């Protein structure tokens, strides 16, 4: 029985981490109709900035959690102002291509600046150690990840449904011309949402850093996972992102334990099945031709 319990906890843990990382991608697509291929690179930057702040500058983890995402968000504003503004009015394919170019640039820059080596970030003292739960031992930090994920979900729901900012974003998503006609500065909304998406990616990076070894390829590994999450849950829906993340978490947690011969295939199979039968994802926007 502890096998199932452990698999479940493991899936939740992986799933919520994936949610934190992938939800930004979903929001950016939902509001801006942009697929940000560089999302994984921004996540990686968040992790590396946290590494610098914690290991080299000596700040506590919490300070890094606060500062590193802000740094990445500022970079995102620059990227938007300098590069992305050219392609907002163009179709989705162009955003994929341009953000792919940005991905290449950020990836290599990280390797040049931080080197090729493997780096480790320690979890904060408060959260190291483990507890007994459902018949297996779980690290305290994993529980922290789950809590942060749920807090984030609540916060985002509140933001989108109960605040003016959220309503503006939803308006801009539904009908940009109309929003502009109503004197909403859509330029700022666009930059803001993109930066927000980057901020979320970086938060994911900082949160993931104590759990994953840092190396220059970590951005590439996560971007496909993020796409899978977002597709399964539904492009443009962030509760969907949570669902997608948990489904992928379950695939990894259970598939890894019980079906190792096909564990590379399963996530993509899941992605394909969702796209075939419920292309909107479990909760997303329209998709058929």
């Amino acid at each position, binding site marked *: 029985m*502890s*096998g199932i319990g*452990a*698999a479940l906890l*493991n899936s939740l843990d*992986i799933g919520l981490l994936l949610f934190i990382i992938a939800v930004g991608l979903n929001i950016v697509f939902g509001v801006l109709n942009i697929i940000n291929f560089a999302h994984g690179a921004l996540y990686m930057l968040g992790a590396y900035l946290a590494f610098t702040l914690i290991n080299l500058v000596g700040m506590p983890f919490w300070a890094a959690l606060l500062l590193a995402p802000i740094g990445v968000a500022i970079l995102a504003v620059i990227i938007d102002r300098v590069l992305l503004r050219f392609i907002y009015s163009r179709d989705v394919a162009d955003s994929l291509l341009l953000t792919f170019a940005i991905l290449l640039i950020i990836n*290599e820059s990280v*390797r040049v600046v931080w*080197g*090729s*080596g*493997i*780096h*480790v970030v320690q979890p904060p003292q408060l959260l190291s*150690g*483990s507890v007994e739960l459902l018949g*297996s*031992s779980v*690290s305290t*930090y994993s529980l922290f990840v789950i809590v942060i994920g749920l807090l984030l979900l609540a916060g985002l729901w509140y933001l989108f449904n109960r605040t003016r900012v959220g309503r503006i974003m939803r308006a801009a998503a539904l009908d940009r011309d109309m929003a502009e006609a109503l004197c909403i500065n859509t330029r700022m909304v666009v930059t803001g949402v993109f930066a927000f998406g980057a901020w979320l990616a970086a938060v994911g990076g900082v949160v993931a850093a104590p*759990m*994953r*070894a840092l*190396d*220059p*390829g*970590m951005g*590439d*590994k996560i971007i496909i996972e993020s796409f899978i999450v977002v597709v399964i849950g539904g492009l443009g829906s962030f509760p969907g992102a949570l669902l997608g993340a948990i489904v992928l978490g379950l695939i*990894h*947690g259970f598939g*890894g*334990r019980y079906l*190792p011969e096909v*564990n*590379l295939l399963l996530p993509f199979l899941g992605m394909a099945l969702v796209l075939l039968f419920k292309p909107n994802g479990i909760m997303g926007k329209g998709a058929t031709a």
Partner: protein
Amino acid sequence: MKKTSMKKLLVAMTAAATLTTAGTSYAEDPIRIGGIYILSGSAATYGEFAQKGIDLAVNEINASGGILGRQVEMVYEDSQGKASVAIQAARKLVYSEGADALVGLDSSGVAQGMVPTMPELQKPLIITHAATPDVTGKLCNPFTYRISVNVAQNMKAAALVAAETDATNWTTIGPDYAFGHQSWEFFGNYLKDIKPDVNLMSETNFPRFGAEDFTPFIDRVMNSDAEGVLISVWGGDLVNFIRQANTRGFFDKDMEVMFTVGAATEVLSALGEEMPEGVHLSTRYWYDAYDNEVNDRFVKAYIDAYGTAPSYNAEGAYAAIYAYKQAMEAAGTTDGPAVAKALSGMSMDAPNGKVTFRAGDHQAMVSPNWGVSGPMHPEHGIRTLTNLQIFDGEKVARTIEETGCKL
């Protein structure tokens, strides 16, 4: 013709000849060696290590006069871990950059793809990292050599270490590709030969390569009745594995844990104290295991230049350059086939002792280093290795028939 004019002509001609040859030797082209390593992506650290080792060797050699009186120049190409890229890179190095010899290959997959093309290129290749046994086995050819330890050698040594423990139930956790499966296969066969009453458990664990989460496999092994575990996970994956294993109390269980590539410096320095004490670690070359002049000089120069202890990848690449120096000077030329021939059966003094390229399969008769992780080193920021074992190179090597090499 009159005698004096003949003489004058002869003198003039000799003078001209001497002058021209003197002129050429000053303007000699450098010897170029091409290096194909992983220089980007998750495994870029290995290429970087190789470059560090090579640059050290090249600087030393150039400072003392070069090879055959010519300076040595390195040209690097990124294999990106892909055989398709590596093959084109090799062609570029040989045909466009004029490389006289090649070193390289971090990935076994790349090696498998590239080694059969070496006879076309007619240049020697010394593999300094890729461990697939096939390149000095069924894929062997006159141009391919390997200076580093292969999986079969490492697993034979592992089996010797394992046989000395009390563990009878053995399982494995390895990455789900050729390296993980081959490691277990070789280990199992060798161990059974030495200790027929061991039980190789049917429940094995092969997380997908690059998996970031190993807890399912950690739990499985902890809940089984394994008494010994052979773990061939490497690099960043190994760092993740050990950290996750620590939180789950994996190392508190009464098991013999053997990490086949655990004493790699990039892993040890990333983990620091998180690398547990009392586990069996192996590496292809441990900087502190060898007490000879070449190693002392190499380790000191490396630490002076780069501030960290040299990894096995750096040492293998360093030694390979010196191997070429010796081979080229023995052959008296940089001609590909001649150098390749000179390497066969050649012995050299490398940091890990006397290294001989066996004529039958071109594999260096070297031993991996197995030890037990001990206290932290006072200066180098990584754990020390105690109970160091260096095996006789001939003892851990396969016989030529076993390799399947037909040279």
